[in-house]
C-alpha cells in the first residue's frame, strides 16, 4: 500500500489535502522568501492520527514536518516537495488546567495566549510571550524554544515546559519530564525543546503557570541616541534591579508603531526604553524609586511612568505590534534575531547603523534589551532589482557581528532554513558533528523536518 492510500485510510478527504489550490497555504511560513509545495497536508485531530502518520512516513521513508500556525520566522515549518505536512492546529485542547498545582497540560496546537486566557480566572499566566503569541502555537514554541520580552528574568520556553509526550521520528512514543517543576535524571524535556522538529513531534505539553504579579510598574524613558538607551539597560542591571522586561525601539520602529496604535511614544526621540517592574506591590513601589534614580542619571530626554493598567497595555501594544507595523514603512522586510552580550548592546547598535549606511538599506530596531536579543528589521522592496540581495547581505553581516561579539545567531526564532549556513560559524566542527550524530541516533532516516538546522545549503 502506498503512502497516499494509507493516509486516505486514516483521514477523510476534507482532512487530507493534495490539490494544488489547497496546498498553497502550506507552502511557506512567516519567512516568505522560502516556498515549497508539499506532497500532501494532513489535518490531524487526534494524537493517534499524528502517531499513525509519523509511522507511515517512517515506513515509506517520506519526510514530514509538523506545523502549527506557520508563524516561524526562520522557515522552520517550510515543507519539502516530496514531504508531508502534519498540521496540528486542530489538536488545540487544553487537556487539564490545574490551578492548585499551577500547571496546564495542553495539546500542541493550543495557541500560546489561550493558555494565559484560560489561567486568568485563577490569577495565573503562562510566561513566555513571543510577539506572535496571539496566533503561534505551543508546539512551535517547544520546537523553537520561543522567548519573548521576559527572558532575562523568566527564561525561555524550555524553562516553562515540565513534561512532554512526543512521537519520535520512528513512531515510538515517549514521555519526558513530568508534572513537577523538579525532576530526576537528565533533563531530556529540556533537550527536546529547541530541537526544531528534528527529534519528532510533541503530542502533549505540560507547562508551568506563574501567579500573575500583584503589581506592574511600567516606565518609558526616551533618549536622543540609541546607544544611550542601551547604556541605561546596563546601569539598571548594575544597580541590582531585576525588571521583568526591558525593551528598546528606535525612531523608525516607534513611528511605525505610533501610526498603527497611537501608543503615545514621545515624538522626536531617537530611542525609547520600556522597563517593567513586577511583583509584590510594596516591593515594586520600593524598586520604582530606585529605577527612577537610575534612569534620571542615564541622560534621558523624557521619563514617563504608566499611570494606569490601560496606559501600560497601550505601551505594550505598540511594542508588540512593531513588527507588523513596520509593514507600513516598507513592502518587505527581514526580521533578524541575533543576540549579543547585553553589555555590548551599545557597540552592536553603532555597528548596525554603520552597516545600514554601507549597504544603503534602512533598518528599524526593536529589541529585547534585557537579554541582548536584537531584532533589526531590514527594510526592502522585493520588486526592486537586487534589493532582496542587498537586504540579505546586510542580514549576513549583522549575524556575523553577533557571533564576533560573543553572542548567538538566534535568540528565539531558531535556525530553521534561514540560518543553516551560520550555525557552523557559531559552533566548531566537533560540535556540529555531535549534533549530527545525535540527530542520526534519534532519526536514522533523517525524516523529521529534514533540511532544517543541520543541513548546510549547497
Amino acid at each position, binding site marked *: 500500500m502506498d503512502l497516499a492510500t494509507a493516509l486516505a485510510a486514516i483521514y477523510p478527504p476534507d482532512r487530507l489535502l493534495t490539490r494544488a489550490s489547497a496546498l498553497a497555504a502550506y507552502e511557506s511560513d512567516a519567512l516568505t522568501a522560502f516556498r515549497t509545495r508539499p506532497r500532501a497536508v494532513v489535518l490531524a485531530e487526534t494524537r493517534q492520527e499524528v502517531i499513525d502518520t509519523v509511522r507511515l512516513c517512517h515506513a515509506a521513508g517520506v519526510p514530514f514536518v509538523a506545523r502549527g500556525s506557520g508563524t516561524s520566522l526562520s522557515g522552520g515549518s517550510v515543507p519539502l516537495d516530496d514531504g508531508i505536512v502534519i498540521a496540528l492546529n486542530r489538536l488545540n485542547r487544553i487537556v487539564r488546567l*490545574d490551578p492548585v498545582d499551577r500547571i496546564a497540560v495542553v495539546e500542541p496546537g493550543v495557541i500560546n495566549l489561550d493558555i494565559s486566557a484560560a489561567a486568568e480566572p485563577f490569577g495565573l499566566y503562562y510566561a513566555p510571550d513571543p510577539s506572535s503569541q496571539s496566533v503561534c502555537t505551543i508546539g512551535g514554541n517547544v520546537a523553537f524554544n520561543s522567548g519573548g520580552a521576559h527572558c*532575562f528574568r523568566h527564561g525561555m520556553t524550555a524553562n516553562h515546559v515540565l513534561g512532554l509526550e512526543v512521537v519520535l521520528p520512528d513512531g515510538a512514543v515517549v514521555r519526558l519530564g513530568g508534572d513537577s517543576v523538579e525532576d530526576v*535524571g537528565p533533563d*531530556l524535556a529540556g533537550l527536546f525543546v529547541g530541537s526544531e522538529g528534528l527529534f519528532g513531534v510533541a503530542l502533549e505539553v505540560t507547562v508551568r503557570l506563574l501567579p500573575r504579579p500583584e503589581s506592574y510598574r511600567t516606565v518609558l524613558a526616551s533618549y536622543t541616541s540609541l546607544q544611550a538607551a542601551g547604556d541605561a539597560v546596563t546601569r539598571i542591571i548594575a544597580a*541590582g534591579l531585576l525588571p521583568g522586561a526591558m525593551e528598546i525601539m528606535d525612531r523608525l520602529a516607534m513611528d511605525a508603531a505610533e501610526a498603527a496604535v497611537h501608543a503615545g511614544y514621545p515624538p522626536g526621540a531617537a530611542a525609547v526604553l520600556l522597563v517593567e517592574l513586577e511583583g509584590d506591590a510594596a516591593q515594586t513601589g520600593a524598586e520604582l524609586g530606585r529605577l527612577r534614580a537610575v534612569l534620571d542619571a542615564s541622560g534621558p530626554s523624557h521619563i514617563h511612568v504608566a499611570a494606569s493598567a490601560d496606559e501600560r497595555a497601550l505601551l505594550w501594544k505598540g511594542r508588540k505590534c512593531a513588527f507588523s507595523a513596520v509593514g507600513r514603512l516598507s513592502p518587505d522586510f527581514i526580521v533578524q534575531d541575533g543576540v549579543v552580550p547585553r553589555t555590548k548592546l551599545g557597540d552592536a547598535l553603532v555597528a548596525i547603523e554603520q552597516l545600514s549606511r554601507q549597504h544603503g538599506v534602512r533598518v528599524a530596531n526593536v529589541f529585547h534589551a534585557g537579554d541582548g536579543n536584537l531584532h533589526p528589521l531590514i527594510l526592502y522592496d522585493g520588486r526592486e532589482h537586487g534589493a532582496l540581495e542587498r537586504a540579505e547581505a546586510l542580514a549576513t553581516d549583522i549575524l556575523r557581528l553577533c557571533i564576533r561579539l560573543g*553572542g548567538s545567531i538566534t535568540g528565539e526564532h531558531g535556525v530553521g532554513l534561514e540560518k543553516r549556513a551560520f550555525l557552523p560559524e*557559531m559552533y566548531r566542527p566537533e560540535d556540529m558533528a555531535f549534533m549530527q550524530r545525535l540527530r542520526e541516533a534519534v532519526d536514522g532516516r533523517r525524516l523529521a523536518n529534514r533540511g532544517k538546522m543541520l543541513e548546510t545549503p549547497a
Partner: protein
Amino acid sequence: MTVSAPPTIDALVDAVATSAPAPLRIAGGGTSRPRSAAAEAPGDAVLDLCALAGITAYDPAECVVTVLAGTPVRQLADALAAHGQYLPWDPPIASAEATVGGMIATGVSGPGRYRYGGVRDFVIGARVVDGRGRLIASGGQVVKNAAGFLLHHALVGSAGRLGVIAEVSLKVFPRPEATRTLVVRTGSLAEALGAHERLRLANLDLDALDLDAASATVSARLAGAADALDARADRAIGVAGRAADTCTGTAEAQHWQSQSLASWPLAGATVKVPATPSGLAAVLDTLAPFGPCRVSVGGAVVYLHTPQAMDAIDAALIAQHRVGAVVRGTGAGTRLGVRPSPAFADRVRATLDPDGRFR
C-alpha cells in the same frame, strides 16, 4: 585503578581518551558521593576533577559567569557575592568541597529555586567531554539562545552518565538587598501542610517555601528591598494564620542550613522525589516510614534521608507511579520509582557514551 586529576580541559580530554576502554568514574568534591566509593572496581579509571578549577570568565554587568567544573561552589558564590550577585537557586552547600560540576550533575537545587527556578533554568552553556574523549560545546554565554541542540540542559541531573562536564556558563542574578525568614512552628503535620498551602497560594512573591515534616515547621523567606520587608512580612504572617518567629542575618542563614538536605549525614542515603502540591500529602505518607522528610520548593520536591536499602522505597514509588533518585550518600545517582521510557534516553546516552564507559 588509575587516578588522574587533569588541571586543564585539554588534559581532561587526553585523560578520557588515553584511559579507553576502562570504565570511567568521575569524582568531584565528594559531598554527594563518598570519594572512596568513586573507585570500587580495580579496572576503573578515576577522573578527579578538583584540579580543573577556576572562573574562566565573569563580567558582573553581564550577569553571566563561566566556570570550570571542579570549582568549589562556595568559591563561585564568594566571587559573585563580591559583586552583589548570587546563584538564585541556593545550591545546598554541604561543605566547602561541593563542586560546580557536581551541582549540575546532581541536579539538586536549594529552597531559593522556588522563586526564580533551579539549576536547569540557569545553565546557558556547557563544554562536556564524551566517552570517546571528544570535547563538545553547546549553548553559549548569552542568556537567550536558540541555536542548536540544548545539550547543556540534558547535563542537569545526568549523574555523570552523559559525559564529563568540563565547564559551564551560568546566568546569575543581582542579590536581593535584604531577606527575612518566617518560621512557623505548628503542632502537627496536617497543620503545617495547611499553613504551607496558605502561604503558597497567597500572592506573596515568596523567595523560598519549605516544610520540615518531623518538626511540623514551615519556613518562608521574603527577599527584596529592605524598606518593603516589614509590610510584606506582616502580610505573610497574617496569611500563615499563626505566630511566627522571624529571623535575619546569621540566624537566618543558620536556620536554612539546619533545614537543608546538606545537614543530613552523608551516611545512609538522601532520596529526591519530585512532587506536586496536590499530591504532597500522599508522597509524605509513602516516604515517612523510611525516615525523616523535608519538603522544598513549595511542595515541588520531597527529600528523604534513610538508612534503609532502596528496594522497598523503589517499590513504594513504583506503586504510586512516582519517580525518584538517590542524590546523596550510598548509591548516589541511582534511579528509583518509575523508569523513564528508554527510546529517547538510550539514544542520547549511546551518542555521548557509545562504549558504555560512564558508570
